[in-house]
């Protein structure tokens, strides 16, 4: 009798473990609810205002869906997007290519929000230049746009042959300012705003290169998983978020006090600091400017530089033998890479619809 009791107890335990293991997979019923992940950056902070001001809710209600906006750390937001925990995420063109797209998550950029026009910079002490840089350790967050910017700076200054001599120190962005400023023996650093502003406040530091010299190469996008976009309610979501975005940006560009105040508050910046960041952020304020850029020929050349960089640095993973294995589709139908492996799509349809007032 006792043995029987125990056996049923053991069975019950085993059953409970199985249920616990299977349950998460079985859950997740279909509800027209979408989550957008964003992270702190001048060009993305408006998402915070978009939600606070009720603009997002207005547009979501119009299409009968629910949209949630959630702030992440940048790396965590990308992880969540690749793991399919969120439907859309803000990211740069480089990360869109080397993270979700290279990991086989078919992704579509529906909003080209802005490009970095000086937000990222190479800063040095003691009058170093690109010719003397290879001898000194450079602090930066490796494998990000910082490293891309540094390489582009080297190439544009005729130092391509010395690229392999660069000595890089991978430094977390949360500590890079303190680590660089507190020790005069650190000679060079590559980072982004507002960190750049904090560093150049030190008079002995000068900027020798910034992203305004490579306009349109570091793009800030809103990327949606293509499978979400292919669902009818996913299209509603894309329309709603695009509509909400351009209404938000229009207010921001018009200098509406609340828009700037909340966008600055999103990253804990002062209003002055945020305005200064906006100056070096080339926002595509109107949907027309964004759509024109996305449809234009420049984008393909710029993406070509980015994808070659990603491949050369192994950012596409060990198994990827060529940059062509992660192909990019452009609005005019051009495919960069192998036709059967399209992973990243630029879609200007929603921006065009916003331009024509069809949202």
């Amino acid at each position: 009798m006792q043995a029987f009791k125990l056996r049923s107890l053991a069975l019950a335990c085993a059953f409970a473990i199985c249920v616990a293991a299977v349950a998460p997979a079985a859950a997740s019923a279909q509800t027209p609810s979408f989550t957008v992940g964003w992270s702190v950056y001048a060009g993305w902070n408006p998402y915070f205002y978009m939600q606070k001001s009720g603009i997002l809710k207005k547009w979501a209600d119009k299409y009968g869906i629910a949209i949630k906006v959630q702030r992440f750390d940048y790396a965590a937001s990308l992880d969540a997007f690749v793991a399919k925990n969120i439907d859309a995420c803000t990211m740069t063109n480089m990360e869109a290519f080397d993270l979700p797209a290279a990991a086989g998550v078919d992704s579509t950029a529906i909003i080209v929000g802005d490009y970095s026009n000086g937000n990222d910079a190479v800063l040095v002490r003691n009058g170093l230049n690109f010719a003397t840089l290879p001898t000194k350790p450079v602090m930066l967050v490796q494998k990000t746009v910082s490293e891309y910017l540094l390489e582009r700076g080297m190439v544009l200054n005729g130092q391509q042959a010395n690229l392999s001599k660069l000595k890089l120190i991978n430094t977390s962005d949360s500590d890079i300012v303190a680590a660089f400023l507190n020790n005069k023996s650190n000679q060079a650093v590559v980072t982004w705003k507002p960190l750049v502003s904090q560093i150049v406040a030190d008079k002995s530091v000068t900027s020798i290169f910034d992203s305004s010299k490579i306009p349109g190469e570091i793009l800030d996008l809103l990327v949606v998983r293509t499978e979400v976009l292919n669902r009818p309610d996913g299209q509603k979501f894309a329309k709603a978020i695009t509509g909400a975005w351009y209404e938000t940006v229009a207010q921001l560009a018009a200098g509406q006090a609340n828009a700037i105040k909340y966008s600055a508050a999103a990253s804990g910046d002062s209003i002055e600091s945020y305005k200064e960041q906006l100056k070096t952020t080339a926002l595509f304020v109107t949907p027309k400017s964004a759509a024109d850029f996305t449809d234009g020929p420049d984008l393909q050349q710029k993406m070509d530089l980015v994808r070659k960089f990603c491949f050369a640095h192994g950012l596409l993973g060990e198994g990827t033998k060529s940059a062509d294995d992660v192909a990019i589709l452009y609005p005019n139908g051009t495919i960069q890479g192998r036709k059967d492996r399209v992973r990243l799509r630029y879609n200007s349809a929603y921006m065009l619809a916003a331009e024509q007032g069809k949202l």
Partner: protein
Amino acid sequence: MAILANPFDIQARPNRLLTQALSCLLFVVCIGLYMQTSASRHRENPEDRVVPNQHQLLAGIKSAVLEPAEEDDSIAPDNASTWERLHHSMIWKDTASSGRRFFIALFLLVPAVILALHIGLFPWFGAGFLRFVLFFDKIVALSLLPILFIVFGIEEWSKIALIVIGVAPTMILDVTQMVKSVPQEQIVKAFTLDANNFDVAYRVVFRQVMPQVINSLRLNLKPMMLFLFAGEMIAASDGLAYRIAIMRRHMGMDIILPYVLWVAFLLFLIDLSLRVINRRMHPWFQA
């Protein structure tokens, strides 16, 4: 007698086979769950990187063990032997640089233990140090990092200092307690046998607490590794945690997972060797 005897019987003696099987059970369950998750994710997306399957893992291990790190200059010639390629590989280089930091920090804990002996035994030292260490132990070492950067630069020493500052106070307090729990009678007895102060400290007390010190060190291995990882993730140009931080940037779980297991294995080896040394050196000690 049923196979499933009462699991809450203190005097139960499961037979050898059953013991082995039970101890393997959770490993098998974990591996099974992993493989199931991996398979289901790969059904959905054949290129999934979040939970790599065995082929991706094998390829990852192979490139970690045989290929040089991307930033490395000393690339082995094409016709190099496997040993030579291993010697120039990513994992070798990272293990060497992390290992150096780890063992330097470990070595720096020796003076901390000696200091603890003095604090516990000599009232003058106790008066001078104990309160400060007690206070310092409560400082969260990671929050001191900007200061460490100023004092030690961003190179090796700031990482080693982080480990030592993080672990040493705890060790000192722990060892001080051990020293204090040595019976006073023994110390008095040693004095009556004409021992001087240092005889008592090093030949009576220190020898006695030594096995406990080693056990305390074993428990502190993981915090040490944790601090080392934190340091390497914040600023480094090589090391095991550096590689993991870099790989995380493009979700190279095929490299990260083998690295994590490798670190666990190394820690296990260090722990095992400390345990064996302890048993050999102090067979009289019953832990």
